[in-house]
């Protein structure tokens, strides 16, 4: 009795597995996934008008499910890039393993599909690993860090020692979670009391105070009030986050501070004989090199405002002093240094400030490998076709020619529309 149920179960399992396998290797699945990817890409393109390119990538491509907000409900509406791409990846691999048979005739298409797999993996990895930041330099200015476009950090700097600064950076996400922050290097606890992803600051007056605005005890915040604004995705606008934090030492509260990217200077305070500075700023990534802008040029065509070229002449110095040279970055000619690409992305300030984009993508070689594989595959495929075609023509040349003026007729095989 148990053997029969066992065998029934086994046969059921086997058929389920077979069905699963047939599903996974089927071309129907390929087509459906390709269709899905078209819808996804199309929707993501349209949505860029509202969300801007970064948010779109997160929402559509770097996700398993695309959610949309209907009223106050957040509903899953479509499989995201990870789901579609991942399934396509599995489908490709499964189909090729299942049907794999090496023949020269098939080798071309197999190479193409293998290249496609590498391309998909490459896109996944660059999605995970690629980091973009910008470097803004005014003529004569030197920097050894790049700044994020969108991420911010709360920074506490111990400036007591004149020789060096001790910097503790706390990511914006931690502020947003409003969890209490304790750091081994800090002699006090940070308690975020309020957090605003985007806000402007206005002067504190009797009327704003009457409206119930939070009172801030220390620093410039004493004279200011926070006015929250809607979070923006627009590429030409910047979010200006703000937060009110309370610092608590061993003897109790040190007071509250207002921090915001709109406050340009760090706020200084003393605690237990040490001098601290507190600021909210865009997230910094330090570079293994310092760059000085010598000259930014914005060439226009004679008598017009049509840009002909943008270029930045920079001085590149490494901390070890082994490298000290001038570099020129211009359109279509970025600087590649230490695994990073610095390209000319913009300018400001009456053509005296350059904006370089700094991209780090450790998987940058994968697309090239993929392209090489696919190109070889296509060459093989079409080369074989061409050889076959020439062979056929040669063979045909031996047989009597088709009568001149003959209208098109099917060449070979049964004519089925």
């Amino acid at each position, binding site marked *: 009795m148990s053997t029969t149920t066992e065998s029934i179960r086994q046969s059921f399992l086997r058929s389920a597995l077979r069905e699963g396998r047939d599903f996974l290797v089927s071309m129907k699945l390929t087509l459906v996934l390709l269709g899905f990817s078209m819808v996804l890409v*199309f929707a993501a393109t349209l949505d860029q008008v509202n969300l801007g390119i970064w948010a779109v990538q997160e929402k559509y491509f770097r996700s398993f499910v695309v959610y949309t907000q209907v009223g106050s409900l957040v509903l899953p509406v479509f499989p995201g890039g990870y789901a579609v791409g991942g399934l396509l990846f599995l489908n490709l691999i499964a189909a090729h393993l299942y049907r794999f048979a090496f023949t020269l005739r098939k080798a071309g298409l197999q190479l193409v599909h293998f290249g496609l797999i590498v391309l998909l993996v490459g896109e996944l990895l660059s999605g995970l690993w690629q980091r973009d930041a910008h470097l803004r330099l005014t003529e004569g200015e030197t920097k050894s860090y790049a700044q994020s476009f969108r991420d911010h950090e709360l920074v506490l700097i111990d400036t007591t020692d004149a020789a060096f600064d001790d910097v503790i950076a706390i990511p914006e996400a931690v502020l947003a979670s409003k969890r209490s922050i304790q750091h081994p290097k800090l002699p006090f606890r940070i308690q975020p009391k309020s957090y605003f992803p985007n806000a402007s600051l206005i002067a504190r007056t009797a009327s704003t105070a009457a409206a119930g605005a939070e009172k801030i005890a220390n620093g410039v915040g004493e004279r200011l009030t926070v006015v929250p604004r809607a979070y923006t995705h627009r590429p030409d606008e910047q979010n200006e986050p703000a937060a009110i934090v309370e610092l608590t030492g061993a003897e109790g509260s040190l007071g509250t501070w207002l921090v915001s990217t709109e406050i340009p200077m760090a706020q200084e305070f003393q605690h237990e004989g040490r001098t601290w500075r507190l600021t909210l700023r865009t997230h910094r990534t330090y570079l293994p090199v310092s760059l000085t802008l010598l000259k930014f040029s914005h060439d226009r065509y004679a008598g017009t405002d049509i840009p002909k070229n943008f270029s930045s002449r920079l001085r590149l110095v490494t901390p070890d002093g082994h490298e000290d040279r001038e570099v020129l970055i211009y359109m279509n000619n970025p600087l590649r240094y230490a695994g990073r690409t610095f390209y000319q992305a913009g300018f400001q300030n009456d053509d005296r400030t350059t904006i370089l984009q700094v991209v780090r993508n450790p998987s940058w070689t994968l697309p090239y490998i993929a392209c090489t594989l696919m190109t070889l595959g296509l060459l093989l495929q079409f080369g074989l076709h061409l050889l076959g075609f020439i062979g056929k023509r040669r063979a045909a040349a031996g047989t009597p020619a088709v009568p001149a003026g003959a209208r098109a007729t099917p060449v070979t095989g049964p004519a089925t529309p």
Partner: protein
Amino acid sequence: MKCKFSLVVTLIAVAAVVFTLRPPRNTGEYDVVGFGRWPTLVNGRLKPLDTVARTSLLMMQGRQRVVTAEARTLAPAEWLLDVFYRPELADTYPVFEIVNPDLLGLLNLATTDGAGGKRFSVRQMLPKLAELERQTKLADGVESAVRTPFQRAAVQLSNALVLYQQLQDSINAPGRNDFFAQLERLEPLLPTLVQGQAAKVGDGVADPKLVLVLAAIFATMENHASLRPIPPAAGTVAQDWMGVGAAWTAALGKGQVAPAAKGYAALGQAWRNRQPEKFNQVVRVQLDDLGRTQPAVMTRSLIEARFNSSEPFYSAAVIYVLGFLLGVVSWLKWPEVLGRTAFRLLLVAFALSTLGIATRMWLESRPPVTNLYSSALFVGWAGVGLCVVLERLHRNGVGSVAGGAIGFATLVIAHHLALGGDTLEMMRAVLDSNFWLATHVVTITIGYSATFLAGFLALIYVLRGTLTGSLNQASATSLTRMIYGVVCFATLTSFVGTILGGIWADQSWGRFWGWDPKENGALLIVIWNAILLHARWGGFVQARGLAVLAICGNIVTAWSWFGVNMLGVGLHSYGFMDAAFWGLVGFVASQLAIVALAAIPLERWRSFRRPAAA
């Protein structure tokens, strides 16, 4: 007899083409053609005044011809002469197109006041210009994407007026009728100005008031001018060309005026006083001088003026239509002779387009595709090229019909894109790379062509099959094979083009792929073609299904080509345009209608109603 017909038609077409290519001739006693060849620097490019006149007119009124209120027809260069030298006349020419009813209302104009119901003169708008300026200022504060049709029309009209005014101010002093006579009086005084420099102002100068008045005028002209028609005394750097105002200002300091600036003044006197001999002499002397000092510029200028007057793409469009019509008729009557004639006409038009594109490439020293306009030319050219190959292989008129339709359609699109201004404009910084323009851009554009061609062949399949009885078994099979072959080619080229684009992006921006709208558009074409091929290989679609998918390919390609530019976002949005939005919608609707037509059960298609010839 039948053989002769094809030959005769082809010869007539060739003769007509040769006729358009011959050098233009003057219609009156003034050497207006010679004047049109004078080069000038505008928008960073040296080009003949003929081009300036034509592009300005296209931007202002959508056509190059000017018809005055007295029904006199002016050549573009002749109109430009009046703009420069007889503004009081030019102001009465109806060359501003206004169609927006609200804008007409604002200007107190009715359609009945305008030439052709839509063209108006500066004179007619004069009483309301201040109000127009106010409206334009209001609209300026609004982002162009969200302007109302009225605001758009107001901004467009005031841009046209600015363009017109800048042309005038480039050569003539605003609001003065005696300017050229004054220049004639100033010229002999110039040396005395330099001698008198040490002494106090006015010393030793016969007419100090004249000098002061003119110096102020020159400064104003320089501020308002769009043209820089005065070549440097030596050297070939485009940057060194000067405006007329600047040339005269320099003359005040040097005591001597540039000969070209003197030429413009003398020409103005001759044109105003109606002295053809003097006019022609000034034109000739200036051309000779430039030929000596700026030979390279003059060669280009001559070729470009000739290219303008022969309008090769216009002739090609006409011949494409003829080829298309003959091809369609050949399926119903006299397939042999009409089919051959259609193919020959297609070849003539193709050769003419090739010549036109090659001339543009030479003028620009660039690969064929540099902006939306040239992409339309090239999509058509490559599509027709593929059709020529198809027709050679299959000889059943399909290549001719598809080629004629694609050639004509893309040239019409190109014509509309030309209304935006100079089509040989300078390249914006990001695109300034001949290597990538020649590889990535050309390949991807061929991908567009091939995808469109597959779609057109599919249109032929569906329309011929449903509406006529002419799609027999053999034609149906060969059409399906053509569609399949072209889709294979389209997949290859759009894929390679997209990959090359990725490599360019990695080389320039440090990332291979950024999900930018234009990149996504190219990706959509690749995926769509991959869907077609897999659907065919998996046996999910037969002939009709393939045709339907290929027609949808037209929509995908049109979207990638134009749709993404309408979004106005992304790194690639250098070709922004919103005017064509409704055109795109109409095209998509027409393709969907034909897809619906294809959904009629096969046995009810006219071609398949009776059993195929057994």
